C-alpha cells in the first residue's frame, strides 16, 4: 500500500469486523518530535494476548476466506523500516488498540495520503458505528497545535433516518471533512516544506 491513510482504512476494517460500536482513529504529525503517529482504538470483541501477539505474523488471521492476513504485518514492516513501531493491545470483551509510529522525516516513510477519503469512506460505509476522527499537527516552529476532531454521533442524531448518501448530505460531510483535514495539513506543511527559491 502506498499511503498510511490506506493502512489505517484497512486496520479500521478489522475493528468493524470485530463488531466494534465505537471506533477512534487518530493521526498526529509531530514535527517538533519528528514523529508521525496514528492509532485505531475500538470496543470490539478483542483478542487474547496470544492472538494479539501473533497477528503480526502473516500466517495468522481470523478470516476464513484465506489462510493469510497481510494487513497488520505490512503496516508493521513499513513502520519498522522508518525507525518506528507497531504495537497492539487487546483484551477479550473490551476491545483492541493499535498504535503505530514512524520517524516523520524518514526517507522511506510513505506519505500520509488521502486521510479525508479514508474518513469519508469509513463513515459512509458504516454509519451505525460511532466514529471519532482526530487529526492533529504540531508545527516545528513551536506554533500552536492544529487539530481537527470529528465525532459522527451528533451528525447521525441530526440526520435521523436520512442516508449519508443523499447527494446534499454527502456533499456536506465530504466538505466538512476535507476542510478540517486541509486546515491541519496546511499547519504541518507550512513549517516542513522546503522553500525553493
Amino acid at each position, binding site marked *: 500500500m502506498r499511503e498510511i491513510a490506506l493502512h489505517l482504512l484497512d486496520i479500521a*476494517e478489522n475493528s468493524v469486523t470485530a463488531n466494534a460500536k465505537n471506533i477512534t482513529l487518530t493521526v498526529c504529525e509531530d514535527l517538533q518530535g519528528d514523529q508521525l503517529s496514528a492509532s485505531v482504538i475500538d470496543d470490539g470483541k478483542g483478542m487474547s494476548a496470544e492472538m494479539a501477539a501473533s497477528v503480526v505474523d502473516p500466517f495468522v488471521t481470523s478470516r476464513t476466506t*484465506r489462510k493469510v492476513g497481510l494487513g497488520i504485518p505490512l503496516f508493521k514492516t513499513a513502520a519498522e523500516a522508518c525507525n518506528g513501531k507497531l504495537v497492539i493491545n487487546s483484551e477479550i470483551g473490551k476491545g483492541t488498540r493499535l498504535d503505530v509510529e514512524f520517524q516523520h522525516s524518514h526517507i522511506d516513510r510513505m506519505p500520509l495520503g488521502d486521510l479525508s477519503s479514508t474518513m469519508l*469512506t469509513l463513515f459512509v460505509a458504516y454509519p451505525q458505528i460511532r466514529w471519532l476522527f482526530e487529526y492533529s499537527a504540531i508545527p516545528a516552529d513551536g506554533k500552536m497545535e492544529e487539530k481537527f476532531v470529528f465525532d459522527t454521533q451528533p451528525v447521525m442524531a441530526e440526520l435521523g433516518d*436520512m442516508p449519508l*448518501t443523499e447527494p446534499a*448530505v454527502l456533499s456536506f460531510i465530504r466538505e466538512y471533512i476535507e476542510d478540517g483535514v486541509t486546515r491541519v495539513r496546511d499547519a504541518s506543511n507550512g513549517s516542513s516544506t522546503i522553500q525553493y527559491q
Partner: protein
Amino acid sequence: MPAIKSLEDLKRVREEALEKRKVKTTEGAIQVTVAMGTCGIAAGARDTMKAILDHIESNNVSGVIVTQTGCIGKCDYEPIVSVSVGAEPKVVYGRINPERARKIMQEHVVDGKVLTDWIVPA
C-alpha cells in the same frame, strides 16, 4: 475559502434533501457495495469508492445506499463492486477502477442497464 460548517447548516441540508426525496417516486432500493478487505484496498478500492460517491454528488443521484464488505475470496478480481437493485439478483463486477465505477453508476444504477463486460464469474 468555504465558511466553517455547523450542525445548523446540516439541519438545513437535511430538510432540503427531505423535500427532494418526497418528489421522487419510490423505486426499489439500490445498494452499491465495495469490497474493502486488505486485498481490495491495496488494489485501489478506496479510489473506486470515492468515484462512486463523486458520481452521486455531481449527478445528484438520490436513493442509493453505498456500503462496504470485507474480502470475499476473489482477490484477483479486486476492486470488486456489487450492485443490487430492488429484488433483482445482485450483480458482481470485478477489477473496477474509478472510470469503470462511474460507468456502472451511470448505466446500471441510474439507467438500470446491467453491464456485461466486467461481471465476475460465479
